[in-house]
């Protein structure tokens, strides 16, 4: 009986559809399967709504005679964004991006390894679950000033904060993905003599991939928020978009403040779009 793989040991063979709706705390997979705009009517409505919101805010600001140092007109923000996109802002964008990407690379790797570990050894999950919960619920931004005292004014405290914010998101979603065992497909691979590694590489991993991509998407969004927020609290000497936000608001330069928010927003949407297309390319079979 020792030759019988563990996945199949003494289970009554059954082919009930595996539960598709196994998600983490929140069903983020909806994010990767939003229907793209299809018809001209839809596109017109989308653009129209965006324009309506833009001009509504503009109208309110103009009509109430709100001064720029209280709330800038959307047109001024766009003007500042287009005209004064100076080397300072490009530098800040660069710094924030470096912090974000380094932190995500470290955090997601840790998250993936932990997810694999937790799937293989349920005991590990029981032990680390409280810490994962703490990491998810505690804003990692709060760690940055604390790390500054110990590590100085380089990029590392922010990179660590981004890693700590993204790791549990990647881990939770990937673990959900790895737990999707489809006995029939594992049996199929076994019947052709597949090794444990082949079953992982050719069945378990592809099956988990859609959830891993969702984990990366959510982890990236949390990571970006942590990078910008951390810079607002205690930036490095290099600065970053978060420090620019604090700087402009302290001088009541609200047009520049608004333009910086716009950069952060575009960065966030860009991350979403990138993962949307990754999901479309590698996980469309599930939609």
């Amino acid at each position, binding site marked *: 009986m020792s030759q019988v793989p563990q996945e199949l040991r003494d289970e*009554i*063979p059954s082919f009930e559809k595996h539960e598709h709706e196994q998600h983490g705390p929140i069903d983020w997979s909806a994010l990767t399967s939003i229907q793209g705009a299809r018809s001209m009517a839809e596109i017109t409505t989308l653009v129209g709504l965006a324009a309506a919101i833009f001009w509504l805010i503009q109208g309110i600001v103009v009509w109430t005679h709100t001064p720029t140092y209280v709330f800038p007109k959307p047109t001024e923000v766009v003007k500042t964004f287009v005209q004064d996109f100076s080397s300072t802002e490009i530098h800040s964008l660069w710094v924030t991006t470096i912090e974000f990407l380094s932190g995500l690379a470290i955090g997601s790797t840790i998250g993936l390894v932990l997810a694999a570990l937790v799937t293989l050894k349920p005991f590990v999950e029981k032990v680390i679950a409280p810490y994962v919960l703490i990491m998810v619920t505690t804003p990692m931004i709060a760690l940055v000033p604390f790390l500054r005292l110990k590590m100085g004014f380089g990029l590392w405290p922010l990179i660590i904060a981004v890693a700590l914010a993204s790791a549990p998101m990647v881990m939770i979603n990937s673990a959900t993905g790895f737990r999707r065992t489809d006995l029939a*497909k594992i049996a199929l691979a*076994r*019947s*052709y003599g597949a090794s444990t590694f082949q079953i992982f590489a050719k069945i378990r991993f*592809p099956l988990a991939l859609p959830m891993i991509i969702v984990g990366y998407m959510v982890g990236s969004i949390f990571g970006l928020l942590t990078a910008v927020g951390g810079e607002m609290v205690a930036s490095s000497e290099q600065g970053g978009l978060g420090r620019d936000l604090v700087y402009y608001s302290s001088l009541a330069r609200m047009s520049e403040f608004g333009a910086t928010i716009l950069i952060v927003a575009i960065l966030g949407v860009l991350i979403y779009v990138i993962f949307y297309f990754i999901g479309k390319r590698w996980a469309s079979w599930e939609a």
Partner: protein
Amino acid sequence: MSANGDVKIRVENATKVYETKTGSVRALEDVSVEVHDGELVCILGPSGCGKTTLLWAMSGLHGLTGGRIMIGGAPITGPRPAEIGMIFQDANLLPWRNLRQNLEFPFEIKHRKPDEARIKSLLDETGLAGFENAFPRELSGGMQQRASIVRALAQDPAVLLMDEPFGALDAFTRDEMNLLLLRLWSETDKTIVFVTHNISEAIFLADRVVVMTPRPGRVAKVYDIELPRPRTIEMTFEPSFISLVQEIKIAVETGGRHTLEVE
């Protein structure tokens, strides 16, 4: 070749007990069956009679609690990819691979180059040529199951084990698939064990029908099917066919009543 003359598969006193939370289930109790080389045998029975358990034990995917299974003269201790091909319920294609990649999957597992010529001729024969780049969700249920048959046959196994492969198909597609299977089988010398809960499907396909009954799973009766080959759908309308369906139906039902209840 077989050390047992022309017996390809020999099941000897197979017993399988599953331990569940509510107690033990006797899925197989002292089941003995012989399948000859090149024969097509159907294992027929209601759900819970252990027919799928028996097939999975033959494939080496599951172990037995007692008894043994010999295929080609050697006892089964694990999967034998070179000799045995398994066809599953619901086609069991990998949804993230297109048809061609699905057919190449077993070759990848075995670290072999795909046999393009063989795949091509099988695709032509099953009417799947031209769909190589389609993903499983883009194929009909019948096409998916044909693809899974091609996947198994491309490996050229001597033994084909089929686990209710057409159970999820509609009646018309099922007839079509049965005719296709018989045609493919007649062109080769394969030994086929076909599990089903459909009596007329079993009679239509088989040289012999092994009727199993549940709780505990055991062989109630074995029928030799004398219908001439090649078989046609028209044969299923003949009174002799219909009376055989009735006879086997009664065997399935009374066979269950007369066996000892062991809980």
